[in-house]
């Protein structure tokens, strides 16, 4: 008895080596954490360098706008004095600064890049800079001034205050312009406003991308669930054979599968021919199943179906058959046994499959481009266009950032509603 009371009264609990147990424990834990960190360090570094940094760099382009300051440093400073709302053209000092800046820019061949950049904001600046570059090349800065009339003689657009408003408005290092453009807005002298209706396109495309990706995910669940169930409940030998049939299209080139859908679905295609032959459809009114949203949904459901079936299958395999039998022996009907016992256990598979299919669908662009016509294309088609054709990488980055944010928000919502721990791939 006396022994225990003596312990109770002493200070902190000590470990075997005489140090307080708390400190000792914390040290052991820290060591463990460091070891764990060192173990994943190569992967962490790899992901950081090859994934996070490039994506971050790409997304940064959506606000970056140093090109104006870098190419026309003196002009930007000179323009600070100029009142952009007065509706007049700047005076000689600005033109002199422009001549000096252009002289350097032409030598470094950066003036045309700037022209391309500013052309996003105002039509015609691209050729203005290209043309002026050729003229400025021949000038002698020390003796050829004053430059105001010389510039206007090169191209009368220099006498248009609008050009100067555009240069001044875009001279800060960072711009919200790309993001505004990505949601069909623009900066005008009166503040931020919606773009003219005949230029609004991106919000429509974002909505369509989300809606159609959800529909594709839904149809993948509807089609994939029964298949996965059959696979999970067949004897191994037959299940393996069926599994090959599921995987076979998975191993076929995406373009081949998409083209095959064209052959099947088009108006002079196999399905329409068959329907006309049977007499279900009139030859003059063949069904339009491709080059619209229907075509995109059909083709993409087919392409993404394995991503739904595989996680479902592996989850269903772990559900013991005995549960269903037990439910039935306790008096449940087939439906109750399925709905109350089997289905809840398969939800983690649905969750995993849905996340995979939805995230893949939202970024697809080759298939929608080929079978989507005008009503079935996604936002990714525009991103691809701006990356590879128009070279407007700032806008592409802004569109991509919004898409990424939308996915993260949906992922967060999913975590809150269903719970991400409730997702299993097997």
């Amino acid at each position, binding site marked *: 008895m006396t022994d225990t009371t003596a312990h109770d009264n002493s200070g902190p609990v000590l470990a075997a080596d005489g140090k307080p147990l708390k400190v000792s424990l914390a040290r052991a834990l820290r060591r463990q954490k460091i070891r764990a960190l060192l173990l994943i360090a190569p992967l962490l570094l*790899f992901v950081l360098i090859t994934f996070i940094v490039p994506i971050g760099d790409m997304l940064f382009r959506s606000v970056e706008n140093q090109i104006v300051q870098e190419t026309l440093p003196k002009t930007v400073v000179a323009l600070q004095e100029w009142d952009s709302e007065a509706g007049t053209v700047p005076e000689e000092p600005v033109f002199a600064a422009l001549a000096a800046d252009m002289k350097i820019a032409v030598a470094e061949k950066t003036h045309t890049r700037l022209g391309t950049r500013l052309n996003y904001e105002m039509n015609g600046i691209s050729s203005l800079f290209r043309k002026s570059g050729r003229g400025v090349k021949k000038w002698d800065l020390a003796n050829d001034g004053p430059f105001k009339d010389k510039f206007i003689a090169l191209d009368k657009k220099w006498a248009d205050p609008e050009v100067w408003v555009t240069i001044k408005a875009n001279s800060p290092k960072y711009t919200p312009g790309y993001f505004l453009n990505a949601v069909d807005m623009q900066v005008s002298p009166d503040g931020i406003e919606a773009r003219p209706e005949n230029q609004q396109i991106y919000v429509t495309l974002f909505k369509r991308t989300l809606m159609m990706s959800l529909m594709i995910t839904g149809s993948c669940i509807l089609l994939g669930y029964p298949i996965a169930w059959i696979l999970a409940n067949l004897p191994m030998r037959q299940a393996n054979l069926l599994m090959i049939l599921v995987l076979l299209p998975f191993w076929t080139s995406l373009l081949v599968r998409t083209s095959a859908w064209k052959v099947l679905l088009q108006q002079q295609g196999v399905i329409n021919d068959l329907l006309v032959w049977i007499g279900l459809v009139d030859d003059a009114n063949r069904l339009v199943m491709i080059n619209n949203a229907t075509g995109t949904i059909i083709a993409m459901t087919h392409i993404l179906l394995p991503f739904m079936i595989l996680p479902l299958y592996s989850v269903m395999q772990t559900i013991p058959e005995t549960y269903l039998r037990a439910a039935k022996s306790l008096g449940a009907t087939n439906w109750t046994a399925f709905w109350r016992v089997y289905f809840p256990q398969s939800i983690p598979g649905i969750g995993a499959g849905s*996340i995979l299919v939805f995230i893949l669908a939202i970024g697809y662009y080759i298939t929608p481009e080929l079978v989507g016509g005008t009503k079935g294309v996604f936002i990714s088609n525009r991103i691809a266009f701006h990356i590879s054709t128009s070279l407007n990488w700032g806008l592409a980055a802004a569109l991509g950032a919004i898409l990424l944010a939308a996915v993260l928000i949906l992922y967060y919502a999913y975590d809150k509603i269903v719970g991400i721990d409730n997702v299993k791939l097997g």
Partner: protein
Amino acid sequence: MKLTKTLLATTALAMTAGVAGADGHMADEMTIVSWGGAYSASQIKAYHEPYMEKTGIKIINDESSSEAVAKLRAMSEAGNVTWDLVDVEAADAIRLCDEGLALEIDPATDLAPAPDGTSAADDFGDMLVSDCFIPQIVFSTTFGYRTDQVPEGVDAPSGACDVFDLETYPGKRALNKNPIANMEWALLCDGVAYEEVYTTLETEEGQAQAFAKLDTIKADTLWWSASAEPIQWLADGEVFMASAYNGRLFSAIVEKDQPIGMAWNWQMFDLDGWVIPAGLADDRLARVKDYVMYATDTQRLADQAKYISYGPARASSAPLVSTHADLGIEMAPHMPTEPSNAENTFVNNYMWWADYRDDLDAKFQAWLAK
């Protein structure tokens, strides 16, 4: 397995697969980028093979021209340009030149003069649309139609304006899914004089007029984005009439024997040629320039026309165009530049489009989505 882990592992796998194709340039190798298909084949036969035989340099043919603009920019930012010569359309050459991604050339020193002594600058003439662009061929976007679907008692369609004539020629049509050429055709066929097309298109009213004209056929039009699509639609009878590249139509009609006819009126000329990427090392640059000098001389450009029905960009090559290498037919009548085909033509105004493309593209896509 946890979801995140699987996702990470998949990403890592995809990454390593991408790293495998790093730069492995040998001293006597040259990577030339082009469009693939029949077009690359014609270049291999007419330029690459004779050049490899003559010099012993190995030419690696890369088929990435469709994404050349973005890839060149990415390569240039990474400071590792692995391509030596790239085949692009004139509009892209202008964009690459503006971005400083392509090398400016001097026709007097970099290109061979014509056999009769005419300088390269004069021989190529107006085709030198950019300081970086080395023209190769003239192709055109023109129209093909199903010969078996022409309504009885009417003449076969002759050109662009028949696309807008739904009464005479009912049925589906196909047009390119971008504003270039479509906007011009809409105005030309709505009665705007040729000289005024681009000045009209600069105005809001002019653009509205073009869209209104396109509205009349919008419900009956399929829009293509890959150049093989209109040909496939024509071959399957999916559309009655389609805009397409003339070389693709030639191949479908002559080589594949499809019931398709050509309607040349108001065909749009376009140019395709080489650009040299900026920032090549001196030895590589010297090698490429030697190749370019050889591959764009008068005889070589004429030779390419044996394999594909695109017109050589040099004036001096035209008289040398002969017969198809395999079929033995005369190539001249199938060329976009043949006088009987070129009664009414227009040339894509590259500089104008460089200024207005972003704006009109946004409007065109918004119009399509409506």
